[in-house]
């Protein structure tokens, strides 16, 4: 392989947990700092998520080219597509890398909505964010599962609705600490952007290693 590997983040989580909206929130923050991203969205039965992100992030805001928001069907097997046999995702990633290895800083791979056993193949993603939401109850982190336990960053979304459904965020926080053995977690509200800055900081520190954006490096070289 002649091209350099572009850092890749895998984002997994149950249907409706907020994977797409999380991406829509942190990509603008990375973009503000000059980082260029591409998005591969694995949908289970539609292209809705890819179409929405293309419209919101590319067409309307110009944060990335429309061609760099790519929808991928998974044959009804969302976890297989990012773990047991990530061939199609890896192919698309390599096609992006071959064209953009001098200007692209990050590739984001969104899994189709799945269950709590989702993880990403290390051959596909360098960093794994798993997102759950408060509406499923405050016992969710305690139920464990590979996604919650093993991800590099656990994101707990929809914290604004906790009082309405009787969920105790303190219980979720304590359980997340125990289950994840003090690996990081972030509480967010993807509707308002609350907590998203912290997610972006984790990505810049742990995935991009605080390197400046490639476009900046290229200009000074």
């Amino acid at each position: 392989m002649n091209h350099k590997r572009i850092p890749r983040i895998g984002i997994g989580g149950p249907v409706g947990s907020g994977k797409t909206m999380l991406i829509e929130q942190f990509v603008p923050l990375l973009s503000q700092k000059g980082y260029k991203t591409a998005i591969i969205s694995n949908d289970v039965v539609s292209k809705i998520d890819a179409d929405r992100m293309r419209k919101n992030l590319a067409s309307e805001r110009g944060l990335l080219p429309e061609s760099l928001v790519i929808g991928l069907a998974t044959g009804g097997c969302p976890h297989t597509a990012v773990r047991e046999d990530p061939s199609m995702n890896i192919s698309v990633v390599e096609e992006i890398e071959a064209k953009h290895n001098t200007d692209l800083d990050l590739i984001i791979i969104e899994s189709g909505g799945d269950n709590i056993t989702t993880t990403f193949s290390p051959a596909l993603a360098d960093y794994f964010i798993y997102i759950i939401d408060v509406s499923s109850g405050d016992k969710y982190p305690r139920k464990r599962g590979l996604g919650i336990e093993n991800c590099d960053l656990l994101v707990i979304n929809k914290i604004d609705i906790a009082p309405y459904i009787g969920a105790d965020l303190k219980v979720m926080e304590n359980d997340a600490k125990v289950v994840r053995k003090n690996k990081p977690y972030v509480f967010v509200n993807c509707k308002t952007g609350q907590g998203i800055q912290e997610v972006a900081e984790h990505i810049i520190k742990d995935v991009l290693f605080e390197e400046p954006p490639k476009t900046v490096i290229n200009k000074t070289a």
Partner: protein
Amino acid sequence: MSIKNLDLTIDEISMLQLGDSFFPTGMYTTSSGLEALFYNKRIKSKEQISEFISVCLKYQLGPADCIALSNSHKAAQSSDLKTIIEIDDLLFSMKLVKEIREASTRSGTQLLNCVLSFINETPTSENIYNTDSNSSKSVISSYFGAIKSKDAHGVYPIALGLASNALNITKERACMLLLYGFTVSIVGAALRLGMFPHFEGQQIIHSLKPVILEVIKTNIERAYSKMWQFSPGIDILQISHERMDSKMFIT
């Protein structure tokens, strides 16, 4: 049978490995147009699915993919990369539907990448036309390098032909892997679309075994200059799948 009399080889296990649906080529994401037929309500019964697969085998995969595989397997034995690339280009040009072309090259490239990882070959894109070595492993590396440098497409049947050659799987068995793998992927897609229960899936596969054998016998010794494919109805159907808004499968 005593252990001493066991007439089994590593090559046969390699065949099982390449033919296993667990082998990572992403084929489970494809339906070859079956999904479009299903949502258009043009296919309902198990017999119709069997007929659909049979038409694909006889008029698409047999006279095109199967011939391409057997000729590339033969060319790999003499490390004839130029011929392999010529067949690769010919087969790529015969795949009329963009989704099908892309899925085939993606599966082919990943198949090669995976096989190269366990036969201890380092892919190279240098000297792709330098085929001095007679090593079958070298020709597979060179072909992979040619794909990376855009000198070849990497369509799945050619990749399977070269991988089979590198693992000492005969071209006859490699053709069987190709056609059986296709059959299983379509039946798997039908099961995931909820078209019939699992036993019926196996009944379809069983009923198509004679078709697979006949298609191989008809095509395996043909020269690649005799390649053809003609199934306009299925081509149109596969094109219509590209335009579906909501779909589970890449093709």
